[in-house]
């Protein structure tokens, strides 16, 4: 049911000899452990996060190490979990909530939109919400229905939330530490199919700065913009593209909100062409925002419209069909091929 994807995380690539690689699930576990150790106000709550260590084992061993009060199993009710966390945050704690799967965060939608996202604003800063909401995110692990949604667009559209999606092992650690340290609520999207990908955590990446994208592969022909589970696919596509003579730059957003316009636009201005890649259904998806804002900011640098390679506009498919839904190397290359490479020499066509 679970595909193990091994990718070498670019950030740690140079140090492969120094230490043993860990999985992304392991890196997240270490981030939680370090956060719990560093700050007594950090509390974890969620379904099955105690003795079981979470269905993905991200909280493995934490209840044993920090006690059931710091790492507590909750009754089975997501609005109750998030609402309880809101109350804890009102008192000054720093709750870290686990939603068991992406689609099972929906029962908490009202608490998220009407309280978590707004509490600081409505109380003029008196009640900040230093909450982290961890959500195993996306598909590709053969999960049956309701276990593979990519729902970032619901969150990115909600003012007051930060939205973070790591794609590499060191980022998983660094961004989760940053999310927990943030005084604002962070929806933290953990790419399920990268849970077992491996990378290095030594030397420790430390907490990241939220809101900074990373260029994972420099290139000159066009820019692929992506995040979370689609990063390895884009890197693979970029490698494959060299055979066609394209040298693709790959930008990993890391943080969807706040958005790093600077890095993204600098890249697109340089390359003049861009393709946005994400798993979620494309219509009204986050890729639309990326494409729209690049166009607003870089119009005269664009040789072609910003294209999108996304999931289909259908309910997430059953396991045996999910590969037809998810963006793959071929679809990305196909989109790159449609970036009007003839443009430079046929300017008069415009």
């Amino acid at each position, binding site marked *: 049911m679970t595909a193990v994807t091994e990718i070498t995380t670019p950030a740690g690539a140079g140090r492969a000899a120094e230490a043993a690689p860990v999985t992304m699930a392991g890196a997240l576990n270490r981030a939680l452990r370090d956060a719990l150790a560093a700050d007594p106000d950090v*509390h974890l709550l969620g379904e099955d996060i105690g003795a079981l260590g979470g269905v993905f084992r991200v909280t493995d061993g934490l209840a044993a190490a920090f006690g059931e*009060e710091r790492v507590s199993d*909750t*009754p089975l*009710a997501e*609005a*109750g979990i*998030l*609402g*309880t*966390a*809101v*109350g*804890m*945050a*009102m*008192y*000054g*704690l720093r*709750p870290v909530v686990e939603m068991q799967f992406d689609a099972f965060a929906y*029962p908490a939608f*009202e*608490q998220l939109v*009407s*309280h978590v996202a*707004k*509490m*600081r*604003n*409505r*109380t*003029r*800063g*008196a*009640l*900040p919400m230093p909450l982290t909401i961890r959500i195993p995110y996306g598909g590709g692990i053969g999960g049956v229905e309701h276990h593979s949604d990519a729902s970032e667009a619901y969150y990115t559209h909600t*003012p*007051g939330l*930060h939205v973070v999606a790591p794609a590499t092992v060191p980022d998983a650690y660094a961004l989760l530490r940053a999310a927990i340290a*943030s*005084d*604002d609520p962070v929806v933290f999207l953990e790419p399920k199919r990268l849970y077992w990908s491996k990378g290095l955590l030594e030397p420790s990446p430390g907490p990241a700065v939220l*809101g900074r994208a990373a260029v994972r592969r420099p290139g000159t022909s066009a820019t692929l913009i992506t995040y979370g589970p689609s990063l390895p696919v884009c890197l693979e596509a970029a490698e494959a593209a060299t055979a066609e003579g394209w040298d693709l730059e790959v930008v990993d957003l890391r943080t969807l*909100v*706040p*958005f790093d*316009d*600077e890095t993204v636009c600098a890249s697109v201005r340089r390359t003049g062409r861009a393709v946005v890649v994400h798993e979620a259904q494309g219509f009204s998806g986050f890729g639309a925002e990326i494409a729209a804002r690049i166009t607003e900011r870089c119009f005269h640098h664009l040789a072609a419209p910003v294209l999108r390679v996304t999931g289909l506009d259908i309910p997430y498919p059953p396991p045996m069909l999910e590969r037809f839904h998810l963006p793959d190397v071929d679809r990305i290359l196909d989109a790159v091929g449609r970036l009007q490479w003839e443009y430079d020499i046929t300017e008069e066509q415009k």
Partner: protein
Amino acid sequence: MTVLHPPDVHAGAAALLPGPEPLSLIDRGGGTGDIAPSVLLDLHRHLVRGRRYNLQATALTKQGRLAVYPSTTGQEACQAGAVLALEERDWIFPTYRDTLALLVRGLDPVEVLTLLRGDWHSGYDPREHRVAPLCTPLATQAPHAVGLARAAALRGEDLVALAFIGDGGTSEGDFHEAVNFAAVYRVPVVFLVQNNGYAISVPLHKQTAAPSLAHKAVGYGVPGVLVDGNDAVAVHQAVRAAADRARAGGGPTLIEAVTYRLDAHTNADDATRYREAAEVEHWQGRDPVDRLEAHLRECGLLTEEAVARAGREAEELAAQLRSRLADDPAVDPMSLFEHVYARPTPQLLEQRAALAAELADVEEAR
């Protein structure tokens, strides 16, 4: 080993059921329980003040000084009886209707109305007063009370959280989840259902088929208490008992206070569409302010002077409201960008700059 439903717990279920009749003291020659006379006079003062506050706020709404006002006329005993039963360090989680509870807690009467006046969402510092923002999405504040009480308990602090909720609100999933969490974590929360007979137009019998709302308690393993919500003394006593229990580590209690909303749902509502005048009259006959006043007089606790003083104080409050709400408050559009995040995102900074430029243009055009 997990034993499903150990028989001893099961046997204790009966103790969690409410009595067959709402707890009432005033009408039953119940005297004043063990409540100190000074507290009773305080209760009276707050009821009188509260009634006047409701009247004044409703009048101001008609004059366009408030965007909307959900009155608690008829429910003053619940509001004052409950809040006076708490310690200052205890937290209150009000619904949008419970402005009076805030007044009793000692908040500035105009800051209480900020939401309803429309200059900001919440007008006071919740931490300073231990009062959560007035909550509009129904029942959503109930889990907050649970979380806050749990946080305090984890820190070893002696604190109770009181969550107000309406009869309609008990139908929401959030209510269910909150009481369950409170019971499982055994946190010091008092859930006070003000059953005022209606959720806007929907009467109780279309809301629930339960024998009483207090009968929901046993399903969570917490005591259910039924109280006459128009008897300030009874409400006070019930809430204090529940708070004491909570403080002593006994966990949450669910109290149903049976009361009545004498006014329409809000100024925008037309209650004649869904209820009979006779019903309203019946409940006017059980007016919580009148009843307390009569009872305290009967007990020889209320002097004419105290009555007059309470009246004067209430008039002063009303006058204060009228004058302080006479003009539109200063609102600063630039404040829209404050407190969206701890630090504004680059995107918000752009938008802030754009609005500033717009406002400068307008200023210039003058």
